[in-house]
């Protein structure tokens, strides 16, 4: 803490001198830039409109209907990729997990009544998935202890039109996924973040209402995210983009926060001790910590005690661990036109003290502390600001050319040709017991090749349901856990195995 304060003082001094020079060198007319038209941010992303993160269904699929009294999980277990599960209105108390691809789990709303997942204050999470191409829509989720909807991996997902109330730690928490949409959800009463995008890429968070939570929307250790057109109010902090040190993925960059209503985020911070969001000062509209290339544009940010926008490095944040692999500074922060009013009117001591070093008293719309390279702003005259002495004028006025960071057609699965697939499965599994010429635990591949003479189907059949062929060998364990494609590939591979690769 002492180090952070010293650093803060040095920065304050630099900013003070910088501001003083600016004040003496320029005349008093502020630089006003029209953001109607003008250059657009050239940071990549899709200029075209992309409305979905879901690729085309992998199969025609069936619709499975779940009625009250039935188990949603039972439907998931019989579902095949391409299927849609429709859950009829009613109350369901279970944890639903989806460890397969291309399943659409959709609540049916009748006369305003939703399919409701009720954790009764006992169950851990409502819905968790690991598969790709998952849609979760139209549910009401309440009273879970862990998360409402969470994933661990899972690319190309959509989480739409859910109402999530009082569900523990996170309302919606996709983690380690690529290409996802979180839209039109209403999330409230969450002890950490209502919507938390963790260690993910290419995410679109739009048209959600989040309130009565510690953090409204959080983009953490993630890249290429857009947070737009959301209504975030009455949280401790409205919208956050930051890096948590100590996680295995070390960066946050290319985050656009635009056109959100960010109002009255002043409720007391009730996060668990030690959690990262416990450090958010209650009364923060937008927090940017250590994240790079964050653009803040077109938001209405009103009525926040501490600040409308708070930008800081790790050195000025309490309670964080050391991570030598993380760049602790928030570089290339870009603040375009926003409407800000009545922020920083009752701020915390640390902010007030630093503001005083710039001889600033009164409201604070934007507060920046810590090193921040190549950051910029337009129309700074609109805001009460502290710590922006090093912020240049941006060379652009809008992000119109970046409609989305979603991937056209979705994130593609790895393409493996059959021979490679066969080799991987053979070496990874079969070679533990079979060698080409030698007898290990099972007979030699040469013997098997002679016996099956190119009969791939025969091998597939055998490895699915092995039976004892020769008394001198133990019975082979079934390899039926391999999918059909891999079974076929490995059967073909081992019947045609090249001699020089025949090991061990």
């Amino acid at each position, binding site marked *: 803490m002492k180090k952070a304060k010293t650093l803060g003082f040095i920065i304050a001094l630099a900013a003070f001198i910088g501001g003083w020079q600016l004040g003496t060198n320029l005349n008093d007319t502020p630089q006003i830039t029209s953001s109607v038209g003008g250059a657009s941010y050239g940071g990549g992303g899709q200029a075209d409109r992309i409305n979905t993160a879901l690729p085309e269904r992998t199969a025609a699929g069936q619709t499975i209907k779940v009625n009250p009294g039935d188990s949603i999980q039972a439907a998931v277990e019989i579902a095949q990729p391409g299927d849609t599960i429709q859950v009829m209105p009613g109350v369901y108390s279970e944890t639903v997990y989806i460890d397969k691809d291309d399943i659409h789990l959709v609540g049916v709303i009748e006369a305003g009544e939703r399919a409701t997942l009720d954790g009764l204050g006992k169950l851990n999470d409502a819905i968790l998935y690991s598969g790709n191409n998952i849609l979760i829509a139209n549910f009401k989720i309440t009273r879970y202890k862990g998360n409402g909807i969470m994933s661990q991996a899972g690319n190309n997902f959509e989480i739409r039109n859910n109402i999530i109330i009082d569900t523990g730690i996170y309302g919606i928490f996709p983690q*380690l996924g690529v290409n996802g949409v979180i839209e039109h959800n209403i999330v409230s009463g969450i002890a950490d973040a209502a919507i938390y995008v963790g260690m993910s890429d290419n995410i679109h968070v739009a048209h959600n209402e989040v309130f009565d939570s510690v953090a409204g929307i959080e983009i953490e250790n993630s890249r290429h995210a857009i947070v737009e057109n959301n209504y975030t109010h009455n949280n401790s902090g409205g919208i956050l983009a930051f890096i*948590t040190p100590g996680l295995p993925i070390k960066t946050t960059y290319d985050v656009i926060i635009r056109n959100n209503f960010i109002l009255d985020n002043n409720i007391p911070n009730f996060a668990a001790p030690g*959690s990262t969001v416990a450090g958010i000062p209650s009364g923060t509209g937008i927090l940017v910590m250590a994240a790079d290339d964050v653009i803040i544009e077109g938001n209405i940010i009103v009525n926040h005690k501490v600040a409308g926008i708070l930008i800081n490095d790790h050195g000025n944040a309490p309670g964080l661990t050391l991570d030598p692999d993380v760049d602790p500074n928030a570089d290339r922060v870009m603040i375009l036109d926003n409407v800000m009013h009545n922020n920083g009117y009752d701020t915390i001591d640390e902010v007030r003290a630093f503001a005083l070093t710039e001889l600033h008293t009164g409201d604070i719309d934007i507060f920046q502390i810590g090193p921040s390279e190549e950051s910029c702003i337009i129309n700074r005259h609109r805001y009460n600001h502290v710590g922006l002495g090093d912020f240049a004028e941006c060379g652009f006025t809008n992000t119109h050319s970046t409609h989305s960071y979603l991937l056209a057609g979705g994130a593609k699965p790895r393409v493996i040709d059959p021979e490679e697939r066969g080799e*991987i*499965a053979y070496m*990874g599994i079969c070679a533990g017991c079979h*060698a080409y010429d030698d007898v290990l635990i099972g007979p030699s591949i040469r013997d098997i090749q002679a016996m099956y003479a190119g009969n791939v189907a025969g091998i597939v059949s055998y490895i699915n349901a092995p039976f004892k062929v020769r008394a001198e060998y133990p019975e082979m364990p079934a390899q039926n856990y391999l999918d059909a494609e891999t079974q076929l590939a490995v059967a073909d591979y081992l019947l045609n195995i090249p001699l*020089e690769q025949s090991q061990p």
Partner: protein
Amino acid sequence: MALLLSTVSRTNLIKQVYPLLLLGALVFCGAAASEEPAPITLSPDCPASFLRSENNQCLLRNLYQLYDSLGDHGIGGLKTALPAHRDGFSPQQIDLGRLLFFDPLLSADQSVSCASCHNPSQGFSDGLGRSLGIHGQLGTRSAPSLWNSAFIKEFFWDARAQSLEEQALSPLFSPQEMGNSPSQLLSNLQAVEAYPKLFKQAFPDTENLNLDQIATALAAFQSSLISLNSRYDQYAHGYAEALNPQEIEGLNIFRSFVARCSQCHMPPLFTNQQIAVIGTPEPEGMPRDIGAEKTFDSPLLKGGFKVPSLRNIAETAPYMHSGRFETLREVAQFYSDGRGHAVPQGEDLLLHWHISEPDLSSHELDRLVDFMRTLSDSSLLPSIPQSVPSGLKTMSEKNHEKS
């Protein structure tokens, strides 16, 4: 000197096939001993799961290579690629590493080998809370399992080594562990008739037996210890029946945000390879081990240790960096009992943010243990040398005599 290198080519003991062989010392009798003394030749074949390339490198193949991972970080969910790994050693280097690994000649008084603390029949650990060095010295930390070390980026509990080679030499010369010196080690190896010849086979382009070769050979052998065919893996590849309902319930508790186990023990390796300060107690009478504070010279990491992989975790009791907990159930209970409950008052530890208050039920703790047990797989256990070039008794022979 009687040299009886195993001629049995890489007998891999499949758990399902020979379950009895996995019980303790019996493992070492699993490979039928050759009648004739073997020629002093290193195996030209790569271990199972490794493909030999045209330039005589062993290249790992496993089913997780069918998948991708976000940013190639090797963390995620079920069908997620593994982290980058070490491979490309020659079969001869791996086989030489195997002989060195089991040879007590590597220690100062020729009493312990690598395998003494990294015993294949105990998950490549030793069943002790704190490991024993030469002269029966009690160390301060638990011997970590070597399974899947090909995927690990930093070594030792405190993450102080950056490569398998760097790691491999350290215990040889640590006075508390094997107590050797570089010069004695080299002269001892040169004094054994077979070793210079074996080193020449493994390193044909180098003139003299040297420390780098020892490190490379040990790293090569360690990187060949692959465990990726557990029942969990079968589930992950899409076979739902591989786990029973209790185990699946355990998986869901493991990855739930109440228990949060998978937030650090991330699939598919079941570690995120980061440092975490979790505040486990030391054994009675042992002062707090500062762990990664020393490595990184930062009190923020006081009591911080590497997140270990949970693969084969059921085989490596007792648990935590100094073995305070005897069972997986006790470990689960520790996490459930809440943030900092075992940190003495007044001690300043910056506990990891995921150390929370899960307050799991007894039923849930049992299911977590059920799930962790599904991560076991020793199907690619390497063959244990019947004897080692030095002629010294190997641990397996000693064990055999005891039994």
